[in-house]
């Protein structure tokens, strides 16, 4: 069965991706759930939870809240939290969808309007539902942020690079310093990783970037949006790869290799391999524009189990290798936090 996982655990979902983008931006973020989704996000998908405080809460929904559609109660709780946390000067609020509002068809636009009226702060309401992958949720969060806050054009600052898609789920890092250092080494004077070691002011001033870089497909739509709105050019590519993976991969020669990761990271690693026939595959967003012939999207465990035999070496997060207990070829670990929740 396509949707039956017999070997691996579920991969990072869309609500985790949305939270990852919003985590450091200074808003009051409410996950519209009963507690379990928040536990998954804070206890597993958000490594910053243990080192950087954030006003990220569960709505604490109960069955009657859902059955009776008591949105007003949620808004009252959100308003109370904003008042209690006034010392933190929250700049906006967010309501993040989960399976519960999806099942009961919560009108998230109405929730957004009610929240704005209650708190006087801008509100983003994201229709994530826990069934899609993290990159879809992150994409929604980026777009909503820029549509809401990056409204004004401002003078372009030469040498300023805006990075999109840089969250712990893609990078396996909780701080931006290694990524910014890598990009400074490429000649950029100022590197802003939107949502990682930066705040809402950097989102508001997105138009000041000379260039945008989407390091994962999660940031692609936002890059396209900003490009269309402000004329900022953008490129797609992942400049920071795990050194051990690169070293092991670069030593391959004359092999048929399969690389599994998010599409831009897999592409970036492929560029490091000389003398190999190399295909890239991903469980996550797959854009034909950035793919080569032979690349494919993994839609189930069986797909990968069928294709694996075609390759001499598979480069993938080690947790994914559980799917291939009988695979005889070479294996190189390519950690991906959205798969195994391992930090680099």
């Amino acid at each position, binding site marked *: *069965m396509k949707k039956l996982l017999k070997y691996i655990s579920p991969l990072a979902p869309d609500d985790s991706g949305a939270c990852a983008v919003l985590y450091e931006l200074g808003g009051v973020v409410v996950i519209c759930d009963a507690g379990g989704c928040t536990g998954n996000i804070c206890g597993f998908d958000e490594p910053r939870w243990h080192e950087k405080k954030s006003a990220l809460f*569960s709505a604490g929904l109960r*069955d009657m809240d859902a059955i009776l559609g008591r949105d007003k109660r949620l808004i009252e709780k959100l308003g109370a939290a904003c008042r209690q946390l006034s010392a933190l000067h929250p700049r906006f609020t967010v309501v993040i969808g989960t*399976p519960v509002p999806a*099942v009961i068809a919560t009108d998230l636009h109405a929730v957004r309007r009610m929240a704005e009226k209650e708190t006087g702060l801008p509100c983003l309401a994201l229709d994530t539902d*826990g069934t899609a992958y993290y990159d879809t949720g992150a994409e929604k969060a980026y777009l909503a942020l820029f549509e809401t806050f990056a409204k004004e054009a401002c003078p372009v600052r030469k040498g300023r690079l805006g990075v999109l898609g840089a969250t712990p789920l893609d990078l396996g890092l909780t701080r931006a310093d290694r990524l910014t250092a890598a990009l400074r080494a490429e000649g950029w004077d100022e590197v802003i990783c939107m949502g990682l070691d930066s705040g809402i002011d950097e989102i508001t001033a997105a138009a000041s970037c000379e260039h945008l870089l989407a390091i994962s497909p999660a940031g692609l739509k936002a890059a396209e949006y900003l490009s269309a709105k402000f004329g900022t050019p953008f490129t797609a590519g992942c400049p920071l790869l795990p050194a051990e993976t690169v070293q092991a991969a670069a030593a391959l020669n004359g092999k048929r290799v399969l690389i599994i990761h998010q599409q831009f990271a897999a592409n970036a690693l492929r560029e490091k391999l000389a003398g190999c026939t190399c295909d890239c595959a991903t469980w996550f967003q797959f854009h034909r524009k950035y793919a080569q012939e032979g690349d494919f999207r993994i839609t189930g465990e069986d797909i990968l189990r069928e294709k694996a035999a075609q390759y001499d070496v598979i480069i993938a997060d080690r947790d994914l290798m559980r799917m291939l207990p009988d695979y005889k070829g070479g294996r190189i670990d390519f950690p991906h936090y959205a798969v195994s929740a391992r930090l680099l």
Partner: protein
Amino acid sequence: MNNAYYITASELAARGFADLPEELTQAKHLIYSSPATLDFNSPGAKGFGVKRAGLCVPGSVMLLVAPGCCGRNTALLNELGYHERFYYLLLDDTDIVTGRHLKKIPEACAEICESMGENPSAIMICVTCVDALLGTDMERVCRSCEEKTGVPAVPAYMYALTREKRIPPMGLTRKSVYSLLKKQKRHADECNLLGFFAAMDSENEIYPLLKHAGLNAVREIGRCGTFDDYAAMSRANFNLVLNPEARYAAQDLYERLGIPFIELTRVYRPEKIRNQYRLLGQAIGKTLDDTRYYAEAVQAVEAFRKDFAGLSVAVGECLNADSFELALSLTEFGMHVAEIYGTVGERNFVYLKKLAAVSPETRIYSNLSPTMLGYERDCDIRAAIGNDAMYYHRDLPGVGFNDEAQTFGYRGVTLLLSQLAKAIREGRQIAEAGK
């Protein structure tokens, strides 16, 4: 500056249980799942949540039927060796609205059995908020799975939405875990301990006390290595319920198999423990001679009092105790409980009122209040008890006292005080060395 909401024990007692402040009432505020409370707040998270608990039946596997987000953190359990026992049927956005996934569950079970080579003892089918809202008849789904595979299928309800209902998810899970027991001849010299998923601390006095009372087999699910061991639990003459969340399971076993149950409460005051054992003895028609264990506990209390009387501590709720009963006990042992991070309920409000009489200034916080984001220590605290209290006071000596091997009775008292004394002494040594 401490911006977290608190109320003193005396103020809270004066208001009464019917007038709890909103900040202490979970249903009335957003929930802050701080690192202090993650495993406490999310029923599927660490420790024995629904997912891991459901797999206590030896030889069983679990099929989680849910959107991917619900099973994400199950990977944590892989580190404990569970990865070969978990399977996932992922729901998409159409499934969660139409319920069309229900027809796929028997087929998924069949595929799991085929892939395993040999059949599991049971398939626990774990469902989440989605099926709670769809009103799925899981008993019927499980019957279909059993017909398709020939393997018993049992529902495990990970319904976070119903956490404050009369029977919370962990109560339902306990019922599910024991639901495969079949009626057989009961034996007068056998009993079960219900309430915990891991085996209790082996040094606990309850084992020799029951043995001396003529109970030659004391079973608990955490010690069942095989399905046969598990099946033997229905031979018991009675069940001892050591955790109120197991009461529903015990009632079910009484109704289905005719096994009566006796409920004991985990308390930390030696006199209260002694009284419970006396009543237990009366109930089973035996005398439980706890003289030695009582004396050890009293001695431990006196030794602790001698060394640490007046010590100011913080007590959390992520620990193997009721926060308020433990705070009351510690106060009676001569300590000063400066702060409690706990959930006030009707049952433990009794302890709160007694605490207010002997320690009126003790501050009561709710771990889950959004205001805890602004918590800072602003009073004298020298040690922390409970994983959550240790999170707030990472610079202080402390004990988590949250082991999976649960404790009970006198052993709980001696274990807690010995661990706490050791932590405090080590903390003092480190502080001295740093001077």
